[in-house]
């Protein structure tokens, strides 16, 4: 009670002082005029009316201020929509410690801005033609991505794909595949946990395969054959940003299945994709990336795991080392990748698979591939549309080194030139055309060239 009484006394004294200070009518008038002038600075539409009484002028000023405050609140709400309530992990949350002042930029001016949907996704429609064959249209990929934030620290991400547009039981057709579905537990920028169905972090394309993100209708051969695509496994691991542009991901994942290795596609068909996978001998994969210089991205990946859970008595170890880089300078883009795969006990694996199936798969003990792709943005930067001319040279050999007693099949020692154009009316739509010159070291098997048309989009 005494506190309340003192507060009341203090309030009355303050009010009295203010009243005494402000009771001089000319002073009052001057201050009101000053306020009206400032209001006009804020809102040029406001017109002072000195002929009115003091009360009327105050009413007008008050009404105008209310309007300005209402408009300001609406703009702030538009600029910062629905912010979730702060989570229990307070230390890295920004409260009033970072006070937003203003938001501006081109996104507010765009009259033709996109409509936002609660899901993301990408689609890929191709028309492929090999020499001597007819044009074959294919709605290759229809992919929807869903994410959800349980809190600012726990997030879910998923990717569900329909390939080749049709899925029917027991018939050769497309597939419905869960490409990703994982939870991220964000602890510190340097150390986070991830668990679920994970994309194996090897190479460029496996984690960045949205159609506008690469040139060419089809993904590079090296990143389809030497490195499986889309390679996903069940597992868990750690991710983080080490600072100075360095990031890492390291996972323990389900193993490759060596019973599906072969001469043509190397280890690519051994991915489990989360179905009937084995974690008895989990594989280890680690990727380190550097993106500390603008428009330069470098990456190195190392994968190692036993793959013999379907080949009793034989447990070959698969090791993959890959290095990749992307760089843009003005209107020129450059990207390249090198990958080498080792398969231990390949001779014993071939013998065991021949016993199981009656066919020698001729699995190599080493597979190797690389590609380099320069690309030029043909139109000047001021154009809203983008046309990219590119040429990609790829060398990929799934018979690089053979175990004792096995000869390499030279038709699988291949190279390709992929040349073409990518047209982007907006950055997220890519209309693609390319011509593919395929060659192999075989004198018997003739490699076919091909032409591809495609349109892909991301939203």
């Amino acid at each position, binding site marked *: 009670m005494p506190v309340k009484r003192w507060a009341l006394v203090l309030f009355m004294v303050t009010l009295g002082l203010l009243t005494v200070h402000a009771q001089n009518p000319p002073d009052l008038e001057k201050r009101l005029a000053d306020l009206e002038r400032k209001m006009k600075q804020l809102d040029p539409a406001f017109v002072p009316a000195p002929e009115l009484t003091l009360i009327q002028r105050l009413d007008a000023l008050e009404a105008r201020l209310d309007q300005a405050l209402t408009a300001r609140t609406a703009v702030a709400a538009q600029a910062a929509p629905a912010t979730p309530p702060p989570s229990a992990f307070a230390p890295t949350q920004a409260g009033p410690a970072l006070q937003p002042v203003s938001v501006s930029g081109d996104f507010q*001016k765009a009259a033709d801005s996109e409509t936002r949907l609660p899901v993301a996704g990408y689609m890929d429609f191709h028309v492929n033609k090999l020499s001597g064959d007819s044009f074959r249209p294919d709605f290759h990929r229809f992919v929807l991505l869903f994410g959800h934030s349980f809190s600012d620290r726990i997030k879910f991400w998923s990717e569900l794909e329909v390939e080749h547009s049709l899925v029917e039981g027991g018939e050769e057709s497309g597939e419905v595949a869960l490409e990703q579905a994982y939870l991220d537990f964000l602890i510190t920028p340097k150390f986070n946990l991830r668990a679920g169905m994970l994309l194996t972090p090897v190479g460029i394309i496996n984690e960045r395969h949205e159609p506008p993100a690469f040139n060419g209708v089809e993904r590079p051969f090296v990143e389809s054959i030497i490195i499986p695509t889309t390679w996903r496994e069940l597992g868990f691991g750690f991710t983080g940003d080490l600072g100075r542009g360095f990031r890492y991901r390291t996972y323990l994942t389900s193993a490759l299945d060596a019973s599906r290795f072969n001469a043509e596609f190397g280890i690519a068909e051994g991915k489990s994709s989360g179905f009937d996978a084995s974690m008895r001998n989990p594989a280890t994969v680690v990727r380190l990336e550097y993106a500390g210089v603008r428009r330069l991205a470098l990456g190195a990946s190392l994968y190692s795991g036993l793959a013999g859970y379907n080949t009793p008595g034989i447990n070959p170890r698969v090791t993959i080392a890959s290095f990749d880089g992307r760089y843009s300078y003005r209107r020129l883009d450059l990207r390249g990748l090198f990958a080498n795969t080792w398969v231990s006990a390949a001779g014993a694996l071939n013998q065991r698979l021949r016993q199981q199936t009656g066919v020698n798969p001729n699995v190599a003990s080493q597979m190797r591939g690389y590609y380099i792709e320069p690309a030029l943005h043909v139109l000047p930067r001021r154009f809203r549309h983008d046309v990219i001319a590119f040429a990609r040279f790829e060398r990929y050999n799934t018979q690089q080194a053979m175990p004792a007693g096995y000869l390499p099949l030279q038709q699988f020692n291949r190279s390709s030139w992929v040349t073409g154009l990518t047209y982007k009316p907006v950055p997220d739509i890519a209309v693609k055309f390319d011509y593919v010159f395929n060659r192999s070291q075989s004198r018997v098997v003739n490699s076919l060239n091909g032409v591809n048309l495609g349109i892909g989009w991301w939203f």
Partner: protein
Amino acid sequence: MVVLMRLLLTFVAAWGLLQAQNDAERKPDRVISISAERFTFNPSKVTVKQGELVEFVLTSEDTDHGFRVPGAGIDVAIPPLGRGEARVRFIAREKGKFVFECSRPCGAGHNLMRGTIEVK
């Protein structure tokens, strides 16, 4: 008395508005360019001084991204490559480390597209 009270309230409200207008119009103490690309911000760590008026100029190298500072009421769209930039101004009131993140789903690495603002 009523007139005086209303005058006082009006004056305080007008002063607040003018102050906010001044922060928005005055030259920022620091302007920092941040580019967004699947799935990184570059730079991903930004250091500013306490009390500074900071302006982030946000651009994208590919698709559109978002820039959100959880709990601070900052959440803006970054337009895609070639479609301009977004500018965010804020005052770093307190020392500490604050996470910013992409708020627009952009692909497999979206959840980890994050960075840190360190206020010293």
